């Protein structure tokens, strides 16, 4: 197989905790703590986990919207963390982001046309104003909106339509990778499915790869080819979507899957109810971070962090059960 489009190796983002009058650093929140994965050309890599697991920080660190504190991000053969300002600006053409909140992610004072022209102007694409206008209309049609509405402001659109505009903005620079950070979680189910279908269509048409970040397992399963499950700043399991759902290996993945309510009143299953809450990422438990809530906890789990291992072809897990 050819070189993956994006290789993330041991990515770390530690936020310092500052205390006292002198603002001295008294420890770190390990939001992302050694995350590694690959994204192949044209595939969707899902990143799933509960709030505070570091999935959004991972996404934004890849784009350097948040500056990572460690690890490597190799995109298209180049180490993104070593790029200078102007090189980084050029790189942003190839890597884009779609945000969760369709209300906060569009500048309320710009018309849709201005919003979509902005990336073209920044990168000097499509020469003159007439050409840009045509491209804006094209982009809107691509995401299923009428080009005739380009002179309207974001507040004149519904949540789902705004999310389409956000996607169109990302597409304006013809990226090869889009980080989609909870792109449908603010939307109603019927609109959510429209946007998921759109993302699917765009991938087929333009061969864009996605890193799809979400907390909703059904959504991630639907859209992803491969999925990484995050817990307290680490990926605990990584597997192809179908395999992950039919045979989850890590006890956390098992619990997560069994907790999803199934829209079928006659569906019966064994539910694993996790005890307690997510521990604080500033004081993660010793050994395996998951051991205090794990139903299969062994002695070794309390003291030693499990190794990240490929237990079956293309299936990775960090758990002592598989050592």
């Amino acid at each position: 197989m050819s070189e993956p489009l994006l290789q993330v190796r041991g990515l770390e983002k530690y936020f310092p905790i500052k205390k006292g009058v002198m603002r001295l650093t008294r420890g770190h929140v390990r939001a992302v703590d050694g995350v590694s994965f690959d994204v192949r050309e044209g595939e969707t890599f899902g990143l799933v986990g509960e709030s505070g697991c570091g999935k959004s920080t991972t996404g934004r660190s890849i784009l350097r919207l948040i500056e990572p504190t460690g690890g490597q991000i190799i995109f298209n053969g180049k180490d993104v963390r070593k790029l200078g300002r102007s090189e980084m600006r050029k790189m942003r053409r190839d890597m884009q982001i779609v945000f969760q909140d369709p209300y906060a992610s569009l500048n309320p004072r710009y018309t849709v046309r201005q919003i979509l022209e902005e990336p073209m102007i920044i990168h000097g694409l499509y020469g003159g104003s007439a050409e840009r206008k045509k491209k804006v209309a094209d982009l809107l049609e691509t995401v299923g909106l009428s080009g005739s509405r380009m002179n309207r402001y974001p507040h004149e659109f519904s949540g789902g339509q705004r999310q389409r505009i956000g996607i169109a903005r990302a597409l304006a620079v013809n990226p090869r990778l889009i980080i989609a950070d909870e792109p449908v979680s603010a939307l109603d189910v019927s609109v959510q499915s429209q946007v998921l279908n759109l993302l699917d269509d765009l991938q087929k048409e333009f061969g864009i790869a996605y890193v799809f970040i979400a907390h909703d397992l059904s959504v991630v399963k639907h859209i992803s080819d491969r999925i990484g499950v995050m817990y307290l700043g680490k990926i605990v399991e990584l597997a192809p979507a179908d395999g992950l759902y039919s045979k989850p290996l890590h006890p956390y993945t098992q619990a997560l899957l069994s907790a999803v309510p199934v829209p079928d009143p006659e569906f019966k299953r064994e539910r694993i109810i996790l005890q307690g809450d997510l521990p604080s990422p500033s004081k993660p438990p010793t050994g395996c971070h998951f051991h205090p809530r794990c139903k299969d906890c062994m002695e070794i789990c309390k003291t030693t962090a499990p190794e990240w291992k490929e237990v079956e072809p293309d299936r990775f897990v960090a758990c002592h059960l598989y050592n």
Partner: protein
Amino acid sequence: MSTLLEVSGVTTSFKTANGFLPAIEDVSFTIKKGETLGIVGESGCGKSVTSLSIMQLLTANGKIERGSIRFNGRELVGLKDNEMRKVRGNDIAMIFQEPMTSLNPVHKIGRQIGESLRIHKGYGKAQARAKAIELLKLVGIPRAEEIVDEYPHRLSGGMRQRVMIAIAMACNPQLLIADEPTTALDVTIQAQILDLMRKLKAELDMSIMLITHDLGVVAEMCDRVVVMYAGKVVEQGNVKDIFRNPSHPYTVGLLSSIPRLEGRQERLSSIPGNVPSLELMPAGCRFASRCPHATQRCVTEEPSLLPVSGEHDARCWLMDEKGVAV
């Protein structure tokens, strides 16, 4: 089973720049003793306005224009404020979506739980505190004796929602209205809270009105379901009928647009278009502009709730022409 709550023909309007506009219209349903009723719909369908109308906690610009809400046979609409206060918290309790903002940050948890006991039951300070600890244990909070003297900011979202439930349970209400109680929570915490609600319902013999947009939660928790769209009840029936034989095209669309965990869907089905705005409510069926089966009749004439089978109704002309190919 006897009827606990009977909502009939309730219309609630809100003042806007264009005058009073109804947010819910002619909403009717009943909740029986010991039953869980799910109210499901997307944002803006009026499900929260329905619960606020029952509690009469509408904002100043809203009012119940028509209809009756009977609780245990007693009419609640038009009740004086001090009479209604005795119902709230005592007979009917409510929990909200946002556990982070629904607890008062400046009071200790014990005091917040004890408050309704002191108001409604005349408990003394020590008595209320003892009961608060008992309630915290009931909702599964570890170290209840310590937590009772803590402030809310020390608790996680899931723990706060447990405290909210403890507050709601304080006076043994006969009806618990839960407005999106798990929407702000993570899926594993949601499972804990739903489990707790199920357990409490069985132990305390109460009824639950569960408002949610999540059809998975409905399927797991509810006995009967009311589906709302654009301020109207469009379908109601018991949970198996709704999921096995969804009859309103909106319910059908909703059910088929959720991604499923099991199996592989190449493409999700979706409902085109958007919910009409309050100002631009169509005269006929409110779903007609998005409906694949809409006819001229749907555009001009609004259907009433028509029987599908037994206690299963749908507000759709298709029910009127049984046998016509769908």
